[in-house]
């Protein structure tokens, strides 16, 4: 299991567009990717769930990656967050 935390820098937070991109990116991996913020969790592949978390600029999101390709998945997801959020 791999984890990392990321503080959102994008001023509009994780909204429809980034959530869609995130879900799409997360689907590429075999591993289960889970987002967590203030006790709320969401599967990274679930668009509505991600949006439902209401992540805003400045919020810190904990990402958990678990599965066969967790090394690569965790690295790529971190890169995704940095690039898009």
């Amino acid at each position: 299991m791999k984890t990392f935390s990321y503080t959102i820098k994008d001023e509009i937070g994780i909204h429809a567009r980034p959530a869609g991109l995130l879900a799409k990116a997360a689907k590429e991996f075999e591993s289960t990717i889970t987002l967590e913020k203030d006790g709320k969790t969401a599967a990274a592949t679930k668009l509505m769930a991600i949006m439902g978390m209401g992540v805003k600029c400045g919020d810190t999101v904990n990402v958990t990656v678990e599965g066969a390709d967790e090394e690569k998945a965790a690295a790529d997801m971190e890169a995704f967050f940095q690039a898009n959020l």
Partner: protein
Amino acid sequence: MKDKIFGVLQRVGRSFMLPIALLPVAGLLLGIGSSFTNQTTIETYNLGGIIYEGGLLYTILDIMSQTGSAVFNNLALLFAMGVAIGMAKKEKEVAALSGAIAFLVMNTAISVLIAAKGGIEAMAENSTTSVLGITTLQMGVFGGIIVGLGVAALHNKFYKIELPQVLSFFGGTRFVPIVCTVVYLIVGIVMFYLWPIVQLGIAQLGVLVLNSGYIGTWVYGILERALIPFGLHHVFYMPFWQTELGGSMVIDGNTVMGAQNIFFAELASKSTEVFSVSATRFMSGKFPFMIFGLPAAAFAMYKAARPEKRKVVGGLLLSAALTSMLTGITEPLEFTFIFVAPLMYAVHCVLAGLSYMLMHILNVGVGMTFSGGAIDLTLFGILQGNQKTHWIWIVIIGLIYAVVYYFVFYFMITKLNLTTPGREPDDIEPKLYRRSDVDAAKSSGSAGGTDTVSALILKGLGGKENLSDVDCCATRLRITVVDVKKVTDSLLKKSGASGVLHKGNGVQVIYGPRVSVVKSNLEAFMESPQSDDLDRILQSEKGEEAAGKPQEKPVEKEPADGQKTIVMCAHQNGSVVNLEDVADDVFSQKILGDGIAIEPSVGKLFAPCDGSVDSVFDTKHAVSIVSADGVEVLLHIGIDTVKLGGKYFEAHVANGQEIKKGDLLISFDMDAIAGEGYKLTTPLIIANTDDYAAIAPAVKGKVAAGDELLKINQ
């Protein structure tokens, strides 16, 4: 107290459903088979050429008749076992075995006492019968029910009993058949002395009937119906049909006794001009309510059922109604409501009695082989000619009866809120499918995972200690709780229930057909150590709640439904834009999912379907909805409008709110938004696109809100 009785009756009624489901088939076999193997029928219609004993057709009909009656003759046993199964809290298979044993033991005890008294001859006429080869008292289904109820009570008390070490082999469930054997040996002895007194009383009533003319016929009809559940109707009506109590008459020089014998003698006689109503008054009354009344009652129950349940109950009710209509076997239909709604049965008895009286007054002379279905009406009424039988009155009164039964039953069911089949008391509540539907399926597949649905249910029911007994029927979880105040309906609904119903200490949580899975999961969960730490699970659950919106198509998973098309309706007035043509890659490349868009002409966003609001975005430019069918819908007003930060938008709904198609969700100032330089194209996205086979636009060009917009195939 009343609620407790209601609860028990309801469970008894439910436990009946298993044997009842068999009755229509058995009834048709018996009805058709016996009508055409009846000697009188064969002779009257000169069918002797094709239907004769030993012939192929006769043998086939005979097999039908005999196998059908095998079911009816052993109804008491079926009920002894069925009620025991239904009423037992756990280890139901043991209750079934015990029910069968207790039934055999009770009847055998009676049998020995009958033999000791001098055999059947020493008993009152029509008071005995043979059950599974055991000569016993005629107790009908009632005999089975007292066994079933008693066995279940013993079972629930003793199935966990711990015996001293030496006897420990006989402890637990093994103790149940043992104690049932002993108890029902005694019950058998008691019944042997008690039941004949009841039977005698009933026989006395017969004399009363005979001496009171039309009113007597009415009373006869009421009693005949009312006694059916107790198996006492044979004691009551057989004397009328077969002995001089039903009259005696000289026909073609022979003295004939008994109503049915008189009718068939008249049928065989060439000199009969009109059938004697003094005999048929004990029979003809069955036709109007069996052919017309009860089927109309079935239709009323069908109409009163919740729309989504109609399909399920429709099959049961239709077959039961047909059986009653065709063969005059009414038990399948009557047993569907007698226990859940005894009052309806009482009304039915009164109406049935009235039917006998009307037939008597109108001089209708139609007899029957054994009951009043369309087959017998045709053979012994219509084909005999109206001159002889006045059968036309059966149709006239029958049609009136159909109307009366329909309205009386429908009125009673809806006004008194009776729980006839397929009827959930909260019939306004739309069925909601939530993530828990999925979880139920998921957790049944994955062994180790935390079962948050069960945790929710358990929490909603006030914890493990609060449960006295958990059971389920076709669509509901039925729980008896210790303290009703500890039950939280909202948590139960959150677990995916479409409704919660309270009756005293009984709680019914309605889940639909998947309830058996919910129940198994709940039971498994209660055994696990996790169930002691509900709050921790539910805390992490809160996050997951948002996370795990249905990922499988959660709706209409009943295989019967197969391909189902869900329709999303237009969320705005305007013109349709293909998603591919929306000026934003995230939408046009379907990154968020497939869907469709509208270029609005009015600044109002409406709900495209029934469902609940998942979340209204803080910036009020978008809203996500979970439809009643489980479709996850995202509505996003304009392109990049998140940057407006909520300016020019006004939300009219809140998170979690239930909505109906066409409800106003958000209104927005089109001119102002356009003035800031944003496009107003509003996509409707199916966020769980992967769950569906195909998603396709239903229209092109101009649409008005509420028009069919998008078709989703499962």
